[in-house]
Structures are given as C-alpha cells and as structure tokens.
C-alpha cells in the first residue's frame, strides 16, 4: 500500500539543475551512523569521532587523570573501533562499546607503565601542572595526590574505583564495562576504597578530605 501522507517519505534534496552531486547529511542516530560507517560513507569516520570524542575523553580522564598521552590514546580508541566496527552487535550501544574500548586501552597503558616502573618513570602528576579551571591551590594539590594514590593501586581496582567514584557510574555499568560480574566489581571497588582511604589519611593534602566515618 502506498503511504497516504507524503510526510512519511524520506526527504530528498532537490536537483540542483547543474548536475552537481549533493551530499546527504549523515544520520543523527548512532545506529544509523554505524550503518554509514559499515557502508564506507564519506565523512562517517569524522562524524563518529566528532560525536563520540567527549565520551571517550571523559572516561580516559577519569581513569588516568591529567595525562600527556590522553590525546594519542583517544586516537587509538577510534582506530581500534574502526577496525572492529563490523563486530559491534548492537549498533545502538555504540557509545557504550567505545567506552569499553577506551577502558581497555587505558588499562593497557597503565599496565605497561607499571612494567616499566623499574626505571623510575615519573607519573605526570609529579611534574609542573597547568592551573585547574576553578580551584584553590589546596584542591589542586588534593586532586594531584588523588591520582598519585590511584597510581599505586592494582590496575583493575583503580579503574573500578575511578569509574564508580569519580565518573559516578553505577555498579552495573562498572561491571559491564570492565567485563566482570557485579560481585567482582563490588569487591574491586571496596578493596580500592579501603586502600585509598588508608593512604589518603597519611597524605597531607588529602587527609582533610577523609572523614573519620570513611570505611
């Protein structure tokens, strides 16, 4: 049956008359963008990067803190996603899938740095930092120390803690994105929190932020 209303038909660009090819706009939904990527549509890669970089950047910031390699890592996340785009089962879950890739990339970077720590690689937190957007010196110190302490935790515990307590991700999200059960995610977070509080109490900049009632 022919649709009764012309508004239900997709809009086509008007012919320009001079034979020029008009480019259709890229779709707004993530699922349709995935289809465009798989079809090799021009501009789809750039659009995906433009659309999803804030999500990827946010997760890398949460997990790594201030880090000179963040931009390159975000680049790697997108390169990996383009290679694996055909394996994405649910195109609607594009952003969540990218976040998962970003977490795995960050995990690899942290693990690699730990392996090289015997030559005393200095974490970026030890180096002169840029001033924070709206903060006192005390808070800047506290933030710097937060990531320094996180750097001493086991990598999986650190990631779970950062996702839960800095990003505010719910437990189910942490479990899904780190590919572990809810119980394991809870255990990692609890373990990281205990250790973090223990070290923070001994830290001059962080001690004022740790109340007596913290577990």
């Amino acid at each position, binding site marked *: 049956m022919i649709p009764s209303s012309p508004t239900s038909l997709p809009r086509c660009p008007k012919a320009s008359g001079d034979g020029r090819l008009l480019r259709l706009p890229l779709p707004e939904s993530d699922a349709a963008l995935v289809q465009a*990527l798989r079809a*090799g*549509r*021009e*501009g*789809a*890669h*750039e*659009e995906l*990067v*433009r659309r999803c*970089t*804030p999500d990827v*950047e*946010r997760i890398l*910031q*949460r997990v790594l803190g201030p880090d000179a*390699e963040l*931009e390159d890592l*975000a*680049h790697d996340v*997108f390169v990996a996603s*383009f290679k694996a785009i055909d394996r994405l089962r649910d195109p609607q879950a594009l952003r969540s899938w990218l976040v998962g890739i970003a977490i795995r990339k960050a995990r690899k970077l942290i693990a*690699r*740095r730990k392996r*090289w720590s*015997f*030559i*005393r*690689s*200095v*974490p*970026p937190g*030890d*180096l*002169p*930092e*840029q*001033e*924070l*957007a*709206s*903060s006192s010196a005390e*808070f800047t110190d*506290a*933030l710097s120390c*937060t990531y320094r302490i996180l750097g001493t935790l086991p990598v999986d515990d650190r990631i779970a803690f950062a996702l839960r*307590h*800095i*990003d*505010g991700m*719910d437990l189910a999200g942490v479990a899904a994105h780190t590919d572990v059960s809810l119980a394991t995610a809870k255990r990692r977070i609890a373990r990281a929190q205990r250790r973090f*509080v223990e070290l*923070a109490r001994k830290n001059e900049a962080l001690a*004022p*932020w*740790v*109340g007596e*009632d*913290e577990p």
Partner: protein
Amino acid sequence: MSKLEILLRRAAHEQDLQRAESGLPERLAARFRDASRPAPRRMPRWLPLAAALMFTAILVAVGAMKKPAPLGVTIGETSAAPLLGAWLGAPDRGPLPLDFSDGSRFELTPKSKARVTELGSSARVELASGSLRVHVVPGRSSAWRIDAGPFGVRITGTRFVVSYDPAQEVFELVMDEGEVELSGCVFGKGRKLAVGQRVRASCRTQELDVGYRDVARPRAELPLASNTPEPKIAAPIPEAAADGQSVAATPLPAPAPAAWLPLARAGKYREAYAELERLGFDEECRKANAETLGLIADVARKARSPRKAERALLLLRRRFPSSAGAAIAAFSLGRLEFDEFRGYTRAADWFRTYLKEQPNGAMAREALGRLLEAAYRGGDAGAARALSERYLREYPSGPHAELASRLVRAP
C-alpha cells in the same frame, strides 16, 4: 555525601571543565577527515599490494643508501628501549645515562627529570627539571632537539650541559664543543651559541646573560636542581668588558610579538597576561581568530582580570557567532558572571544561551546545574524548582543532584 565523595565529584567537575575547553573533538576529527574516502576497486586486488611491495622495496633500497637507520636508545643498565614519552627520573645519588645507537649519549644528573619525545633519524628530548649532559655525535642529517620549558636547543653535533629549573624558570647551557641554536622566549626565533660560551636566561625576568666559560662561574659542574639555592641571574655584561677579555655581551632582544602564546600554553597565565597588556590587549584581540580569542579570555580570567576576559568572550561571540567556540564562550560568560561578578540573573541568561545553542554539548550537564544554582541564588524559587526537576530527570547522579533534590523537596 562524605567529604571524600565531594572531593571526587569535584575532581570530575574540574575534568569536565577542562574537557570543554580542550578542543579534542575537533582535533581528532581533523585527523580522520579523509578516512572514509572509498578506494577505487576496478584494478585487480593483488595489484595495489604488489605495487606497495615494490615501492617499499625501492624506498628501503634508497633509504639504505642515503638514510641512517632509526636510532635506538637504552637507559641505564637495561637493554630495553624506554617508553616513548614516559618521564624518566634519575636516582637521587647517581646519574641516569641514555645511550643512543649512533654513539650519542645523554646523561641525566641526579634528581633530574626528562623524557624522550621523538626518536627517528635524530631524537627529541624534553628536560622537565635538573641537568642533562649532552654529547651528540656529528654526522646525522637532521638536528637533535632539547626542549626545556619555553626554551629550545637545536643540536647538530656537539657536547654541552643544559640545565633547567622550572621553579625559577632559569635556563642554563654551557658549551664544550660544537655549536647549538637556542630558541624560545628571550632567544626569539634563534640564537647561536659557539664552543666555550655559556648562557643563562630567565623567561620570568626577561634577562639574558651570555659569556665565556672561562670568565664565568664553573656552572657546568653545578647543575640546577630543585634543592639548590635560588639562582641569581647575572646582569647583562657590558659590551666593553673591563678586563678586555672576549666577553660577549648581549642586550635584551625584543620579545616576539606573540610571546604570550607559549607562556599561556605553558600555563604561565600571569606572565602571558602581562605580555598581552604590553602588546595591547585590544589590539591582540582584534587580530585573533576564534580559538585565540578563547585563549586570550582564558589567560585574562586565570590572571584574575575577569573584565578583560569578558571583553574577549563577548568579542568572540560577536565576531564568530557560528563557531564552535561561541557556545563555549556563552558558558564561560555565565561562569564569569556567576563566580566573579555574582550577577546571577545575567549568569542564568548565559547558561540558557549555551543550552539553547548546544542542548547536547559537552557542558550541558554543568550548564543546567549552574543554571538551577543561579536561579536559586538569584531568588527565583519557582524557576529553581522547575530546573531542579529537569536536572534530576536528565542527570539523576550529576554533581548538582543533591542541591536539586533539596530544592525539589523544599516547601
């Protein structure tokens, strides 16, 4: 919410603010701009591969004849290469050597920090603090480079000691052999330093002292370190030295016109702002593009000159209304009104403007949170409640959720 939770949420908030200004989506998108152009498929599939192999073989053959092999580097006693870009710290009681495969050697003196940032036919090393003894074997085609804060050293084949104290922003270099070219800050685009010369410079005080090693203090053995006494910059030596020895005296060169830019990018906002004022704040704004205007506003705000920041942001919105930075400027104007001028009604207008222009923008959550806070502080209880309900619907665990819940529950 415990104190620790507040700290961690605030950390996230700071990261959100930094992210809004990072410009990463645009930069990354530009890298992938041409990634999806369909490749022609008419030729046989094996042909590109064969062509690529042949091309590579030719390149390898030509490269083997003309170019030296890429450099390798080992650190200390280990035989493995370092992580490119990872910061290296020398132990407290001994040096940390970096041995390059062409025989060149860098030695980080105790407590110094540096990293290898590029490794190809030559290397690029960034010195964060302390001293680096450098010996580059001549013969490579491209120049080596050392970055130390705002200063740069271009090397072709030489031996010297370079030091940098980030706390005092003092740069020092003592030549043993060869020649180097210095750049950045007081050196401008480039200044050569020859064998036997030494230089001591400070970006902060804009002072520069060039002399000969034998008439200067033996600095080569006294690397700058964080625990050394505060270094004093020697006054420029007059052209005709009293003892008639070959002392090269150097008047201060005029800073480059955009000297504030590297200062700003290095996070030295007060110095960058002073330089902007020296050059003429309005004149620099007039010449700037959207991105630079955003940076000028940022510099002014962080140098505690909110009115100037406001002026730059308003100019950005007026001159580049359709740029990506215009909406961010609206958010920044709201934040200025809120934090600096306590103008909550005007702040609310700016946050509304941002949300209208970028309803799904990176700062949407913060803008809505600030908007409800501005409405609340401005005494508009009805709007604050309505905005709180919207906030809780859209961001139930956002940083303003606690305040929003309180406002919704309020009688």
